[in-house]
């Protein structure tokens, strides 16, 4: 169990939710991309650059990535619902961005 924050991002990289999430997250946090948040892992985008190299573990709901037709890049962990539940057990606090 870590005291850090698990961020659940379900909003497009163009959204204020994305902007606010990136602003708040710090090394040791983790993020789960889902729904519209999937597009934040498009390689070569500013959004992806803003997420990487921050010491934040990036996870993505595999089914949502598949639905969006977005390839999971190296360094991003694809998880299923069981994996999501596991993550929520590891972090003592979560914050949804939508």
């Amino acid at each position, binding site marked *: 169990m870590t*005291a*850090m*924050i698990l961020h659940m991002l379900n909003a497009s990289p163009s959204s*204020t*939710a994305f*902007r*606010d999430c990136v*602003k*708040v*997250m*710090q090394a040791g*946090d983790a993020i789960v991309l889902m729904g519209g948040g999937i597009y934040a892992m498009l390689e070569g985008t500013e959004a992806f650059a803003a997420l990487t190299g921050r010491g934040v573990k990036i996870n993505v709901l595999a089914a949502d990535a598949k639905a969006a037709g977005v390839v999971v890049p190296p360094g991003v962990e694809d998880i299923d619902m069981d994996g999501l539940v596991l993550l929520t057990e590891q972090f003592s*606090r*979560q*914050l*949804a*961005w*939508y």
Partner: protein
Amino acid sequence: MSAKQKRKILLVLRFLPYGSSIAKAAIDVALASAVFDQEVDLLFIGDGVLQLLPDQDGREVGSKSLGRLLSSLPLYDIDHVYADAEAISRFNLDPTNMLLEVRMLSELQIHNLMLQYDHLLGL
């Protein structure tokens, strides 16, 4: 932690005051939490800082002034209010002239603040 112990809740307010019902819902959550004797503090970030503008008057757009509701929160012992310094500066707001007395926080301070709460509720 037993259920009887107070849990600290941080409301993370990040929506515009009008245009959706989310900002109003957030204030309802704050009031309901206070009435049930929960410890709830407020953090305004991003667009949410625009809820703090003084002199709001929603009458002509057929809406209750959210500002009036917000300024009543200290009556319910909700008096720890924090705001995103970067957003306040980006919108060129005057932090000394806001509906509520706010403590300005940097990005790192916002994160550190969040770690002091049991629950984070973004709305």
